[in-house]
């Protein structure tokens, strides 16, 4: 029985699909990671147009107040188990927009991320490296951070 469960974790970790949703400029480098030079499909990643088939939600950079409800709705529509990757400086502390009040400075307090990828914007290699860490997390059966807590559970969206 244990072996079969391992197999499911393995299968899930090696074919991570991400919801095609961009909140900020880091999605440009995400597109580069999809491109022929970096080609993340080699590792089993694929963007999918609908969140209902997705395993991973990427917070691509800044999260403005207006897009946060849409981001949370997208997350809520994804089937369990689901993981969150935060790209760039903005999704950590607002980055270059730290002084701007239309940008949420701590989006990962609201929707906790499993992996942070540094950079402004992060290089495609870094994005792939970050996704590899998600793989490890799934293989090691560590529950996702957003399922453990976060303000999003109390929020109306």
């Amino acid at each position, binding site marked *: 029985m244990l072996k079969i469960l391992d197999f499911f974790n393995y299968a899930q970790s090696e074919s991570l699909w991400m919801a095609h*949703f961009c*909140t900020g*400029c880091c999605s440009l480098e995400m597109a580069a990671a999809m491109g022929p030079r970096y080609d993340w499909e080699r590792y089993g990643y694929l963007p999918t147009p609908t969140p209902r088939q997705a395993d991973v939600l990427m917070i691509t950079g800044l999260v403005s*107040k207006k*897009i*946060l409800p849409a981001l949370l709705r997208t997350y809520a529509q994804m089937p369990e188990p689901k993981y969150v990757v935060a790209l760039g400086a903005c999704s950590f502390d607002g980055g270059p*927009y730290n*002084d701007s*009040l239309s*940008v949420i400075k701590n989006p990962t307090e609201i929707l906790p991320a499993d992996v942070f990828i540094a950079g402004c914007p992060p290089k495609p290699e870094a994005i792939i490296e970050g996704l590899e860490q998600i793989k490890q997390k799934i293989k090691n059966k560590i529950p996702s951070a957003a399922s453990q807590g976060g303000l999003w559970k109390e929020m109306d969206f």
Partner: protein
Amino acid sequence: MQKIKDILKEFSTEYIEDYKKIWIKSKLTTSDSLLSVAKALKEEGLRSLSTVSPTDFPDTDTIEMNYFFEDLQTKRNLWLKCDIPREIEKCEIASLTPLFASANWHEREAFSMFGVRFLNHPDLRPIIASEDFKGKAPFRRDFDWDAHEKDTMIHMKMIVDAFKEEQENNEINLDADSSEMVLNWGPTHPASGPIRLRIHTDGEEIISVDPDIGYVWRALEHLVTKKDFIGAIVAVERLCFMDNINSMVGYSMAVEEIAGTEITPFAKWMRVLLGEVARVSSHVMGLGGFFNNLGLHTLFMWNMDMREFFLDFLESYSGARIATAAIEPGGVRYGLDMTMFDELQKAIEKFDEGIDEVYTIFVQNPTMKMRAKQVGQLSADDIEDFGLSGIVARGSGVKTDIRMDEPYAAYDEVDMEYITQKDGTSYDRFVMLFEELKQSVNIIRQAKKHIEDGVASGAFNPTKDHMVKVPKKLPKGEAISRVEWARGEVLMHLVTQEKSSKPYRLKLRAPSFNHTMMLDHLLKDKTLSDVPLVFGSLYICQGDLDR
């Protein structure tokens, strides 16, 4: 030019003066005459209103309104100012939207950011700013951002409630027996990016499109006022990452004009070179995005491959692939190591190798031709009335290109021609992108050769000539600069105060704002399946749409 001055002389003005080569700057003594001045100007041929930019002066209790009129045919431009009272009850001025269709969203923006009420505006709803700023004026100098920030969670609830209420109203307002409905296209649509189009349809047919924008609003215009003149380039470059170099060029030119600095010829050529590299990296994504929206990803993949080589050059020059921060007031940030040109040569070779195949397979693609020629038609009159620019304007046969109309950097020495198409359909805009791509690479070749020759002859010193010093504190003044950005005309209006180390006000006029305004016009009576195609052909970036 004289005719414009004659018109202005009929009204009471504080001054009428020449500004740069093709601008006239003037200030009306009273805002009452604005409408009649505008009427006369429109008859004279200044048909596009580029933007409306209010500047807040709490000390004198006034808001200074800046209007930028343009004539795309004869290249005459007018910068018109007038003062209006600052108190929120009296802060009103006649709307120019009935005369200039291009003013529509720009006035709405001034209304939501500064609380300026435009009388007789047909549709004065807030735009860009999220629900929590409704009825407030966030860009005024005395707006208390800290107090506003404390209630973020309440504001989130306001935004969610407003959205839910809108959806409920849609249900109520529509006839239950009809086949009409309101669809939200985006922000989770794969082709949309962070923008939402409220599409009112009857079955498949579109009745109206009302874009809801502001999903990536970062208040850049306010953000720069918190940074110093060098730090502001971080915000300016994030106008849109696809072509960030040219936006920095525009900002740097405005700062240099106020500081009275003349940059070196080497720096000018570097600005041309880097600017065109950024334009190529943006245009290849635009080309790919167009086919992406049609559902074919091959071209996007090919172009991403090509783009990487140009980014390699930017990376070797500045250390960053995209966020280069390579242009700053006074020149370009880094000296040039001539071995970096090897990377550029590789990129040009890669481009030459692939571009013919792109032409035969994609540009001449018969299926795409048939499809894209049917939709998205803009006439030359539309271009002038709605103040469109860039490939959208040239696709309809209007000869406008700031690189030649008002040459900046070293573009006066570059050998280039206006590229235009006739019909102005989605297909023409796609061809424009392709032709401009070739033009840009041609300019890169010229700039590269010029720099290499200059270095070889000793005219340029690539390690020292890149910068001249610009003082940290600038005198009181204001300047405008225009650059031909990948998507069209970017106009920056910079205001500084005496001995200040920060910009007092920076207005960014971004082309996508006007182009998005056209969606309703273009999609009316078309079907839902046309939305991604027309949207893709307008070459919109949400970054500069919201700022």
